[in-house]
């Protein structure tokens, strides 16, 4: 286990606000946004009719000079993060070093306090072991596809200190004190929460990138990984749901907690997007209904742009190039968060 480097507390953003302050402001703005949504949709329909030249992703696609390799490397960064989290939780060690080399700066993994989870429920342990193997396989298949172009594993924070990325994320969702930590390795439920933070994001990232990939071979790989990540997400969300009536860390129930995490993610990834849902049930006349799958009204999972994904893993609503789980940023050419959640002038 590498020594844990000190991580600066409350890094100031370009506007002088701390990351924590920015997160809180983003969360507050979300409430306002919801009330404005109806007006927004009316307006958006008008806009859609006159700007008929653009696909949802065309602004990104047209402006991009990114290659398939750039996109696969972006995905590889996310897989490094997921694979190491599950490896730490299952084995107490990071993924093998042979799977972490490549171009760019190979970073230090801050795993201070991370350890193998002492699972109370052996079934959860068996799920975790399966997912860890899948995620390492994804790292390796992407590295294989990229060959010498594969990026190295960047600096990552999977530690449990009060200033850790996990604690910062939990602070955004659950408003825990700045002196408190969120420890995803503490028990079964915390582990599931940690997994929950990542899995849905991976699904939206792969779906959002799917139309940008030009190579059929790469597309086939990406579709296959998308499906696996969605299987994982369905599994994790189902296991949380089975414990959904238990008291939450912040919310009244575990299910309410998932809505808080979902809201936090939504607040980071943009002012006009609602791309996230927790597992709160509904109870229409036809009977109690779960919400394992986060979908739109057409039954489709959501997409996120690369910039929106980076807003979440950097844990910042701003146009930053590093932060949160990637203290030095991701490696590769796609490194900048979108900053849709705050005005450019902010």
């Amino acid at each position, binding site marked *: 286990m590498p020594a844990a480097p000190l991580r600066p507390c409350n890094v100031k953003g370009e506007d002088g606000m701390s990351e924590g302050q920015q997160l809180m402001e983003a969360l507050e703005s979300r409430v306002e946004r919801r009330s404005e*949504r*109806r007006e*927004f*949709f009316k307006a958006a*329909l008008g806009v859609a*009719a006159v700007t*008929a*030249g*653009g*696909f*949802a*992703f065309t602004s990104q696609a047209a402006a991009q000079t990114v290659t398939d390799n750039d996109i696969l490397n972006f995905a590889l960064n996310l897989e490094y993060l997921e694979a190491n989290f599950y490896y730490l939780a299952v084995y107490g060690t990071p993924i093998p070093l042979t799977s972490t080399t490549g171009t760019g700066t190979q970073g230090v993994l801050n795993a201070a306090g991370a350890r193998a989870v002492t699972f109370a*429920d*052996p*079934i959860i342990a*068996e799920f975790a*072991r*399966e997912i*860890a*193997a*899948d*995620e390492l*396989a*994804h790292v390796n*298949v992407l590295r294989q596809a990229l060959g010498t172009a594969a990026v190295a594993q960047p600096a990552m924070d999977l530690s449990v200190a009060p200033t850790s990325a996990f604690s910062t994320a939990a602070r955004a969702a659950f408003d825990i004190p700045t002196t408190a930590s969120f420890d995803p390795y503490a028990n079964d439920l915390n582990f599931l929460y940690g997994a929950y933070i990542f899995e849905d994001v991976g699904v939206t990232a792969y*779906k959002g990138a*799917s139309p940008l990939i030009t190579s059929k071979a790469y*597309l*086939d790989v990406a*579709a*296959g*990984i998308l*499906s*696996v*990540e*969605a*299987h*994982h997400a*369905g*599994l994790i*969300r*189902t*296991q949380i749901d*089975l414990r959904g009536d238990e008291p939450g860390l912040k919310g009244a129930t575990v299910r309410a907690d998932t809505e808080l995490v979902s809201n936090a993610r939504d607040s980071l990834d943009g002012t006009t997007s*609602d791309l996230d849902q927790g597992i709160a049930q*509904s109870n*229409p*006349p*036809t009977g*109690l*209904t*779960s919400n*394992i*799958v986060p*979908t*739109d009204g*057409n*039954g*489709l*999972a959501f997409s996120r742009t690369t910039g929106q994904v980076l807003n979440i893993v950097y844990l910042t609503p701003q146009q930053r190039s590093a932060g949160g789980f990637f203290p030095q940023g991701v490696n590769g050419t796609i490194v900048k968060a979108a900053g849709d959640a705050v005005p450019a002038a902010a």
Partner: protein
Amino acid sequence: MIDQETLDEVFAIAKRKREERRRFIKVASTAMIAAGGMSALAACNNNNDEDVTAPPVTPTPTPTSAFTAGDVDILNFALNLEYLEGSYYTAAALGASLNATLVSGTGTQGAVTGGRQVAFADRLVASYAREIAADENAHIGFLRQNLGSLAVAIPAINIDGGASGAFTAAARSSGVVPATGTFDPYANDDNFLLGAMLLSDVGVTAYKGSATLIASKTLLEAAAGILATESYHTGLIRSLLYRRGVPGTTIATAANDRQNAELISNARDTIDGNTTTAGPPAIFADDDQGVGPVTINGGTASNVVPTDSNGIVFGRTANQVLNIVYLNTNSRTAGSSGGGFFPSGLNGNIRASAATP
């Protein structure tokens, strides 16, 4: 069976999902207009946030499709599979059949044989069935909207739980029940989950297999969205089967769910007529797997996600999918254009399975 009014309430199931559509309108209407003046999504352009009792879709037929002929064929192929899944889940969760506005189209409209509401013992399993039913109905609506007047009608479908039903045929061929036994997926929670696994894994592999064949980028992203949803469903169902396969765990006891899952998987391997094909990634002959347990790095692990050694979900060609849904046990020697869950075959141009995929 419940009445139409009650059925419409199904679509109120997730009000939040309805709200999400407002956002989808912004994105999709732009895309669809750009893709060739499609008006199919006009039916969604309703700014009344209270319209929770309205069906999710009212197809507005368009005379032509913006998509290539090949894409239309793929969409219609997918629509047939969604008809099957939608019929199964709507029956099991609600004791209803698909809304009449969701089944018309080109080709011969067929009847749905069998299906009834499951008396779920576990309220959570019931809640999952309702959610999946809502998602599958939404997929049918979405595909029909995009196909417009080119959408195929629902073909004849057999989801009967009796001795002559397609589920029993599948269960007999896989050994889940003896050669003279009956498999009724509506009998209890576990049977429902096994029936769901039978259909859901096929849906995942079908969408995965078609990803590289779709010409339209707009359609590709939408298909990726359906693939993701189907994969969430499968992760849900298979993880429940794994958990319920152990006595004394949280929600139920069913000692042989895991074994049954393995049997179903083996049967599909046999009948999909698969041979190893060139990648990437390579499609292996053993492209179907039970839910475990397996051993990874010396420890016991589940196998909720059926993947190859690269951690990638398998894809199936259309022919392989057809062999499975037709329960085409003779697929290695003869093609087929109907049988099993689709007694008269699929509607549309992709309908005849081949002996050699």
